[in-house]
């Protein structure tokens, strides 16, 4: 396909220039499905709720198709060797998320809530912006190694982003977690979603420089390589920041996500298992320590251990000053009522979750309406995205690219685990959202940027090695082929 040489004759080509296929057509074919499936789902919801194909079907289908097309063309032009699965998978999740958000917009119960907004058009706008950001990343980030230059600026930016929700007048406390900021006229923003990417850049840049020191200078103790005291510095700082997030923003998920991402990247950079052990110990100590005095975390843990009790409390007038929520129990009922095959699009009652049904708890709607089969498919799609990310890290040729790719994929995996696990009652609930599925501008934008970066790295990784400059003795090495 791309024997990209400038050989003088048509009979010759240079060895080594035969590259991997670009797989762009595979991506296009998959994208057709990724657009068609949500369009059918959309029609299905309309038929189930009001017995007619929704009037917006054409514009919705064209809109999603157009966005996917633009993204595809951008990849074709600016990252021709990129991984062919990432874009279709993200498009499919984003499309399905739009359908579910539109479906929940139709709920009379949710419409009756005081702060109801018609979320689907906004989410479509966010999707357009997100794909716009994706294209911008592809155009302007010609080589991901450029990011290496911004290592310490990234650190600074990440810290600002993380501190923003705590600035008085800017931060917003929504149901106990302080992970939002209000921008007058624009709405609210979740800076943590962006901090995730910026932090990955910082960690990758920092660890690439320090990895040898962290890896080699160590003592052996009980089969583990113990780092020197002074090398413990960075992990202690990140740990401390995570703990501070936990204490001041009272969000277990964000805290766990950042610390987990750092530990993963540290392990990959140093190849020392001891960091994992340290990381686990430190996060356990931190989580238990903070939970012992932070009442918001305690409430979340109580709600996780006994959702039914929390449900009962939410229906009574309690005077303990704690906001009791029946959301988790409602989500569990939604999952259970879905059963194996689900009630079908538009036929469930996941709107009973009320607040955040289309954001933090969006998976419950999938659970009820698409059943076990649907949720397993969704989880596997997430798994595939993570797998493509890890594969990109494996294929990347530069350590910075490897670290960045594994950092982003690992964070993505942790986020999916923390959110889905929280909604399914596996771990305590946190205030994060399912990437692409959930309603929310910050999440959609940040995750499209994340996919953009992964695509950029994978393009660099899979791009055939540049052909050697045409040398004067090229004639000597030519291969003669029968014509």
């Amino acid at each position, binding site marked *: 396909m791309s024997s990209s040489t400038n050989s003088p004759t048509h009979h010759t080509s240079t060895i080594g220039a035969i590259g991997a296929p670009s797989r762009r057509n595979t991506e296009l074919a998959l994208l057709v499905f990724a657009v068609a499936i949500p369009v059918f789902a959309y029609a299905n919801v309309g038929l189930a709720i009001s017995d007619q194909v929704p009037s917006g079907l054409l514009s919705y289908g064209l809109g999603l198709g157009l966005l996917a097309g633009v993204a595809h063309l951008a990849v074709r032009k600016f990252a021709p060797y990129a991984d062919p699965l990432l874009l279709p998978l993200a498009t499919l999740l984003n499309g399905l998320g739009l359908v579910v958000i539109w479906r929940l917009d139709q709920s009379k119960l949710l419409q009756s809530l005081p702060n109801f907004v018609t979320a689907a058009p906004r989410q479509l706008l966010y999707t357009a912006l997100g794909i716009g950001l994706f294209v911008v990343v592809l155009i302007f980030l010609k080589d991901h190694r450029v990011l290496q230059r911004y290592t310490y600026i990234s650190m600074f930016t990440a810290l600002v982003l993380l501190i923003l929700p705590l600035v008085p007048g800017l931060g917003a406390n929504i149901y106990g977690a302080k992970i939002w900021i209000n921008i007058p006229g624009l709405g609210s923003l979740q800076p943590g979603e962006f901090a995730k990417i910026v932090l990955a850049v910082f960690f990758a840049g920092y660890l690439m420089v320090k990895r040898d020191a962290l890896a080699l200078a160590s003592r052996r103790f009980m089969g583990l390589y113990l780092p020197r005291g002074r090398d413990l510095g960075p992990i202690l700082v990140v740990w401390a920041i995570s703990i501070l997030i936990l204490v001041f923003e009272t969000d277990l998920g964000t805290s766990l996500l950042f610390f987990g991402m750092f530990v993963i990247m540290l392990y990959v950079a140093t190849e020392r298992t001891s960091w994992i052990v340290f990381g686990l110990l430190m996060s356990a100590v931190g989580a238990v320590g903070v939970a012992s005095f932070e009442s918001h975390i305690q409430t979340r843990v109580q709600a996780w251990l006994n959702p039914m009790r929390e449900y009962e409390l939410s229906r009574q007038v309690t005077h303990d000053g704690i906001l009791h929520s029946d959301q988790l129990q409602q989500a569990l009922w939604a999952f259970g009522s879905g059963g194996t095959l689900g009630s079908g699009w538009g036929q469930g009652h996941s709107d009973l979750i009320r607040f955040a049904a289309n954001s933090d708890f969006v998976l419950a709607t999938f659970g009820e309406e698409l059943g076990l089969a649907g949720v397993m498919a969704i989880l596997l799609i997430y798994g595939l995205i993570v797998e493509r990310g890890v594969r990109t890290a*494996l294929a990347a040729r530069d350590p910075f690219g490897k670290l960045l790719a*594994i950092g982003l994929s690992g964070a993505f995996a942790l986020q*999916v685990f923390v959110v889905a696990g929280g909604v399914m009652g596996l771990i305590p609930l946190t205030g994060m959202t399912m990437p692409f599925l959930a309603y929310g501008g910050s999440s959609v934008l940040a995750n499209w940027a994340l996919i953009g970066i992964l695509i950029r790295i994978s393009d660099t990784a899979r791009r055939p090695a540049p052909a050697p400059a045409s040398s004067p003795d090229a004639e000597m090495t030519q291969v003669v082929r029968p014509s």
Partner: protein
Amino acid sequence: MNKPLRRIAIFCGLLVLTLLLRDNYLQYVRADSLKDDPKNRRVTIARYATPRGDILVGGDPITGSAESSKSGVNDLKYKRTYKNGPMWAPVTGYASQAFGATQLESIEDGILTGDDDRLFFRKTLDMITGKEQQGGNVVTTLNAAAQKAAFDGLKKRGGKGAVVALEPSTGKILALASYPSYDPSSFAGNTNDDAAAWKKLQKKYDPADPMLNRALRETYPPGSTFKVVTAAAALENGKYTSADERTDSPLPWVMPGTTTELKNEGNIPCENATMRVALQYSCNTVFGKIGSDLGNDKMLEEAKKFGFDSEQFTPVRATASVFSDDMNKSQTALSSIGQYNTAATPLQMAMVASAVANDGKLMKPYMVDELQSSNLDPVAKTEPEELSRPLSPKNAQILQDMMQTVVEKGTGTNARISGVEVGGKTGTAQHGVENSENPYAWFISYAKLPDGSSPVAVAVVIEDEGANRDDISGGGLAAPIAKNVMEAVVNAKK
């Protein structure tokens, strides 16, 4: 760097695997228990998502379904309506969006909503053909004319009371009325109006307790109507073998172990009276002494054969009537004339009358004749079932003879119906400390057609607080209602 990368890949795979396992646990292992959890709102939503099946009396529905009010958010689509709700409330119970369901509405909920497994085939067919799930019907044994006679009679009386009518040969419940009653339609939805109506009916706010099903759930001292059971015990135990044999009954009679005389109401010929005369005049001394002579055990045995001391399931549960054990002679004597601890539901006393009328065979009372699917196919049919034999046919004849004397020329003349043999027994039961409160007026009876069959046995109880104390006697207040109920059934047979 690739070795740790591969390990991280495995770690991420494990995260996803954990989520998959958890999801299987939730949506497969625990799916049913979560789905059917009564606190799960979906259970209620499903119950009211389709029109409920109906409860039928004589082929006509006494219930219906209407779309809920559209004002505000109501995720429950249909609500229950009732035709002549107060009259039928003791039969139907209620099915309310806000307050749940009771009695027949609750017991046959599966059929009425269409969820019952017995409707599985129908349900699957509806699902395949894309039809909405439809509820089945509950066909009751009730007789609309008898029920109307019973309810109107109680209503005219105005106090509190209950009527139960049975078909002696089968145990079918023909009438089941309680007064004061309530309209289950008034709180079938879940609006504020429904809540207000519900609140007003609670005993706290309405001392008359209109939601109490007096026919099945309230026990009263049966008073003299219990003498029928005592007479049956005397015959069955061979103490006396005919209605006209003189009994060994001194007057005045001092209860054994005490110095208290058992009194009769007024100056009536009770000394050594035959059982026929004693029942005719309702002699306390005669039946008190019979009970005392037979003893606690034999009386208890006979009472149990009539259904005392056990709950009845019609299928709506009826409270167990009481005849105590471990009583001394004087307590047994008092119990044998329906006082002391003895207490009976109206259903229980109707069962006593019905067993006598059915030649000694007590049939299990029931009110659900048939369950139907939505297209009227029978799903289940209740077959009459014999509960016990409190009397031999011969002794039953003797007791019928005695009860007919009561109606012909005794205390029960108000229940006479021309052309029909009627047997009955009045009762006026004392209650309250030192009998301070108004007594209950009882009447139990049965009708017998010329061909020897008995289509109806009935029990009526009136607790009439407004009435003059002297006026209260079973014959005066309760017998006319019993008569109207029996006439309604007999006329339908002609």
